[in-house]
């Protein structure tokens, strides 16, 4: 034991190191086997050449990728103006549903109906209905723009989800925190603003991150009502070239954004779980 320590490691650490090395070897060889299977066996499939030519066509990829990247800027722009609006609206709805003031009772009912409806309808339907429907009432330009109404559809839908998450966060704050705030003489509003909300928001950040990632992908639904963002641009290329590679290019661009974001959200969740235990 003593001379183990002299070598800088206890007996247990040496044993654990051995186990770890073995686990690493097993993991490495099984991973290699799986990748070998994918990269050797799939190309041996009879249809592989056709699939490769129509999904993984390097020539098409190089030709379309820069334009896809350019179209993706529109996705980012839509995302950037929707996300803050969703956060604010979602929070307001969550607060309205929490309110106990009888004067705000209609708000509470509306809030409940709102979240039920918008969470129950597929986003793409909402995009169509609001994106074509509202301008169809005869709004003049630029107020009938599909950018405005399509974004509003996204905002309304996502705010419904975000509101529910905020609400669950608010409810997860122990009720004695409200009592503690009230016992100090703080008003309901102050207690919500300074005591409940900061804790609630912190708790739901990982869940809201996941909503943002979902939103980032659903921005593409605006293409149904006209805006040429990356999904539509890829579709145009696909049609003109009768080749699906542009979709693969679009997927690559989406992944480049969503994978780091997803990893980060997972990291936040793991961190929060660690803190709680």
């Amino acid at each position, binding site marked *: 034991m003593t001379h183990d320590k002299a070598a800088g490691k206890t007996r247990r650490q040496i044993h654990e190191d051995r186990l770890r090395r073995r686990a690493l070897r097993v993991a490495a060889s099984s991973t290699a086997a799986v990748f070998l299977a994918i990269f050797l066996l799939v190309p041996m499939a009879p249809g592989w050449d056709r699939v490769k030519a129509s999904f993984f066509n390097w020539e098409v990829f190089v030709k379309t990728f820069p334009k896809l990247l350019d179209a993706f800027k529109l996705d980012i722009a839509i995302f950037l103006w929707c996300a803050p609006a969703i956060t604010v609206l979602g929070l307001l709805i969550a607060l309205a549903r929490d309110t106990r003031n009888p004067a705000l009772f209609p708000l509470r009912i509306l809030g409940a109906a709102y979240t039920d409806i918008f969470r129950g309808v597929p986003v793409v339907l909402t995009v169509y209905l609001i994106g074509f429907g509202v301008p169809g009432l005869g709004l003049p330009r630029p107020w009938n723009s599909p950018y405005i109404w399509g974004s509003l559809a996204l905002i309304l839908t996502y705010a419904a989800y975000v509101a529910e998450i905020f609400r669950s966060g608010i409810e997860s704050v122990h009720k004695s925190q409200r009592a503690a705030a009230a*016992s100090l003489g*703080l008003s309901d509003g102050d207690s919500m603003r300074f005591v409940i909300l900061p804790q609630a928001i912190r708790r739901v950040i990982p869940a809201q991150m996941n909503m943002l990632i979902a939103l980032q992908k659903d921005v593409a639904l605006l293409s149904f009502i006209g805006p040429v963002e990356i999904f539509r641009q890829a579709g145009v290329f696909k049609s003109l070239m009768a080749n699906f590679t542009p979709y693969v290019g679009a997927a690559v661009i989406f992944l480049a954004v969503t994978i780091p974001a997803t990893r980060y959200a997972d990291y936040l969740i793991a961190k929060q779980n660690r803190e709680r235990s």
Partner: protein
Amino acid sequence: MPKLALHGVEKRFGENVVCDGIDLTIEEGQMVCLIGASGAGKSTLLRCINLLEPIEDGEILLDGKDISLPGLDPQPVRRRIGMVFQSFNLFPHMTAVENVMLAPRRLYRKSRSALLPEVTELFERFGLKERMGHYPDQLSGGQQQRVAIVRALAMKPEVMLFDEITSALDPQLVGEVLDVLRLLKDSGMTMVLATHEMAFAREAADKVCFLKDGKVIEEGAPEALFDAPQHPDTQAFLARALK
């Protein structure tokens, strides 16, 4: 005139009568301890006094004025009555000093810098000066309870309510919190405690009330109540509690 007087206070949760016609008077500067089995209604009574729960019937007089009138704005009253709970007291997202300053800042519209001297002095008085910048989860349970007391005191309350503030603590931390209560009593604070610390109640209380099923079964000076309980329920409870 007593500082605080309860007459026939009744509190129900649905069918469940939790306070069943409670009468109690507390003189200025007195420390009154509520004892009784779990579920006797001690916490509920304290919450009623602080207007965290509306009462069905009866009245609660603070300086002779009924504060339990239905429809009365509870906030000004709550400022005059501080309360410390068993657990989940502090706001975990704020440092100790922010916890203490929040209510005075919002209610007295004072700035942080204006509040700092008096708040620092409070922390100092309760041996917490080094902990001002700590978050609750960086504090021991005893320190957290003491900060909670400081936080209530920062509103300069006239009466303090304590709901079993030591029962969630490790035994070795109980002492430091009880010391704070002694200090407060010496400074002349009017206090009502729900407690399971019989030894402390006996040593420090001016009056002890035994509650059972929402009723005051017996009350009196601690020596009298602990040494010569009159009511059989009190005797049975003390026999178990002091074992």
